[in-house]
């Protein structure tokens, strides 16, 4: 997908001025975080499970080559195929070839952020293959030609009324001509429309929450069951997953599932948890004839052994964005690419370049709420700071910031000069601000005073000046 991350500042303005988005975000901010809090409180060992989840992912990443090869061996022995895709381009090519090999015209897709990352839908469409999104949220935004705004709730930026209008516009030609107003009716209508598409699909494509090395299974959780139809009805099932999804055992998966659902939606478990282990065996009642797993690297292996490795622990629960006050103010589209929120602010600069996505790791107060809820304890603020350091080294930091910083650093490293300058600033600001106690505007502080008053200093000199007088 085309990035607009470099337009972040313009995107912010549009997001803050969008009343529908602001309505939706208001609900998201209280809903998700409250449900996660309650779910965590109901499970006494939740914090200990987070430690275990972190350790499991760390162990898998430290031995990634071993577990990936074990996974491949298992899948192959079950009659499936593993395809290694070093780049996004490779993954698109492999999937297109698989689709062509069965003469596929439509494919049923269950939600996959990796498919967004590699721009799969656009590519398939350009080849005359129609991808049908089957997750309700993904389906809605596909109709609207929009990218997802959240990694687990892709249409969270939309209100119910917007969805109703979209359905009326697109389902009318299928005979659904009544504008619906109830949530359940909207879901029922989408279900009717989608059911035939599942039956018609030649290929089912899903993502994976985990790849289990010991059994060769890909594991998927959903709340709609759409993945189960995508991977059982069509004759070919393609799993598209990035390499860091591999974990050693089913036992490990059990731990990760316990923190995943609670962190994501506050559920104890998602409604559907499915293990796909190879193609249909003789005697099986259903299942695909062909089972393929496309393993995408796309730059991930290059961060192994570096400070950024921690970001590969992510299990895509979305808790960081649900708790991020910046995401809560501007929503996901403003981030300009596939992954929004705090995890997007550390992943995106790696995947599309820090020059393109430099604003993302800067647009954080480092409030730390993301790290405090991350089920695998990714130090997100530290990783955002990592990118700020790379930007500073590469002279990508805006000139005004650099100059201001240089002036401040010059003074801060000379305490006597600093005292003289701050003493003067204190007296000047205190003098002119003494009537009101604050400023409504102030030179060089427009970013502050456009929205807030600026408190004047207390009169009587700086603390250090007064302290010297007192002693």
């Amino acid at each position, binding site marked *: 997908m085309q990035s607009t991350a470099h337009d972040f*500042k313009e995107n*912010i*303005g549009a997001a*803050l001025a969008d009343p529908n988005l602001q309505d939706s975000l208001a609900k998201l901010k209280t809903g998700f975080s409250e449900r996660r809090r309650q779910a965590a409180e109901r499970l006494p060992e939740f914090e200990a499970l987070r430690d275990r989840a972190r350790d499991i992912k760390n162990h898998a990443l430290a031995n990634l080559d071993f577990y990936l090869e074990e996974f491949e061996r298992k899948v192959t022995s079950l009659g499936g195929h593993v395809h290694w895709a070093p780049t996004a381009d490779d993954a698109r090519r492999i999937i297109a070839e698989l689709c062509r090999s069965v003469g596929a015209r439509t494919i049923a897709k269950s939600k996959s952020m990796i498919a967004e990352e590699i721009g799969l839908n656009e590519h398939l469409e350009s080849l005359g293959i129609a991808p049908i999104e089957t997750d309700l949220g993904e389906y809605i935004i596909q109709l609207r030609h929009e990218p997802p705004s959240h990694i687990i709730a892709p249409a969270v930026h939309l209100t119910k009324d917007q969805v109703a209008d979209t359905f009326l516009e697109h389902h009318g030609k299928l005979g659904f001509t009544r504008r619906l107003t109830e949530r359940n009716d909207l879901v029922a209508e989408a279900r009717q429309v989608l059911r035939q598409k599942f039956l018609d699909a030649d290929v089912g494509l899903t993502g994976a929450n985990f790849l289990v090395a010991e059994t060769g299974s890909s594991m998927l959780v959903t709340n709609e069951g759409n993945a189960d139809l995508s991977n059982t009805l069509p004759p070919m099932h393609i799993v598209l997953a990035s390499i860091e999804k591999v974990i050693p055992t089913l036992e490990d998966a059990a731990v990760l599932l316990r923190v995943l659902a609670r962190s994501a939606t506050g559920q104890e478990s998602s409604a559907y948890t499915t293990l796909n282990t190879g193609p249909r065996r003789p005697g099986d009642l259903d299942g695909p004839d062909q089972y393929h797993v496309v393993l995408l690297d796309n730059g991930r292996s290059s961060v192994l052994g570096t400070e950024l490795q921690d970001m590969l622990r992510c299990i895509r629960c979305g808790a960081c964005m649900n708790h991020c*006050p*910046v995401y809560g*103010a*501007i929503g996901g589209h403003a981030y300009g690419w596939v992954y929004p929120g705090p995890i997007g602010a550390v992943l995106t600069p790696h995947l599309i370049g820090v020059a393109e996505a430099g604003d993302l790791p800067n*647009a*954080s*107060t*480092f*409030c*730390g*709420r993301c*790290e*405090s809820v991350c089920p695998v304890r990714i130090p997100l603020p530290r990783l955002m*700071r990592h*990118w*700020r*350091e*790379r*930007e*500073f*080294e590469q002279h990508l*930091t805006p000139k005004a*910031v650099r100059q201001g*910083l240089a002036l*401040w*650093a010059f*003074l*801060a*490293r000379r*305490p006597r000069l*600093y005292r003289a300058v*701050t003493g003067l600033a*204190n007296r000047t600001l205190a003098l002119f601000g*003494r*009537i009101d*106690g*604050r400023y*409504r505007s102030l030179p060089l502080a427009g*970013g*502050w005073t456009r*929205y*807030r*008053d*600026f*408190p*004047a*200093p*207390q*009169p*009587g*000199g*700086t*603390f*250090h000046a*007064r*302290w010297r007088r007192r002693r």
Partner: protein
Amino acid sequence: MSKSSPLPRRVALFVTCLVDLFRPSIGFAAVKLLEDAGCKVDVPAGQVCCGQPAYNSGDRATARAIACQVLDAFEDYDAIVVPSGSCGGMLSHHYPGLFDDAPALKARADRLASQTFELTSFLVDVLGLSRVTARYPGAVTYHDSCSGLRELGVKDQPRQLLQTVDGLTLREMKTPEVCCGFGGTFCVKYPKISNAMVGEKTADIAATGVDTLLAGDLGCLMNIAGKLQRGGVRVRVRHVAEVLADMGDDAAIGEPEDRR
């Protein structure tokens, strides 16, 4: 610090650059609270800033140089006390990482880190203070500043002491733990987002109907005060140390001296 070791009595105050420049009364309130609790307080002259503006802008070299200044100025004390969770967190959680490639400096940074405390946490957790002698008539609400809360575990300590202030009632806002949108240079780099965040914070504060907002970090307080005042909301804003030290009669943040 274990129970058996003697209480740290020789305390250095890290004033913070904002308190130094904008609101010295917070520094004096901290000194009073520490002296009343039996400490001997020193204010090392070499201090300027903790280095966060550089550190959070990716300028590690400058952050390190400033950290070295702080190390030089603050050695030889039993404890370093900071009336700010943000600057306190910088000293206690981030300095050691700046010296990963310099073992001698790292050892000094580790020692400094282990001796650095946010003010209310030092009073309650280290000195064991359970009450203060102060009066502040009215209802207050308390904003948990992010670094203090999430890096240093400051949550109950200020509330515990506030409960003992004569005439004061504490009324919690709905989301005391959500960031106010200050974030150091963030508030001027991304003013629109910052404004949206502080707008929510001030709406939450206003909905409590209190007369006063308290917090432990001057950056947040200036941001919140400025937004409340721009919106014409009549809630006074003070640092928690000022109320605990019975210095709640001074003009509040952003208010003129003569109109108390």
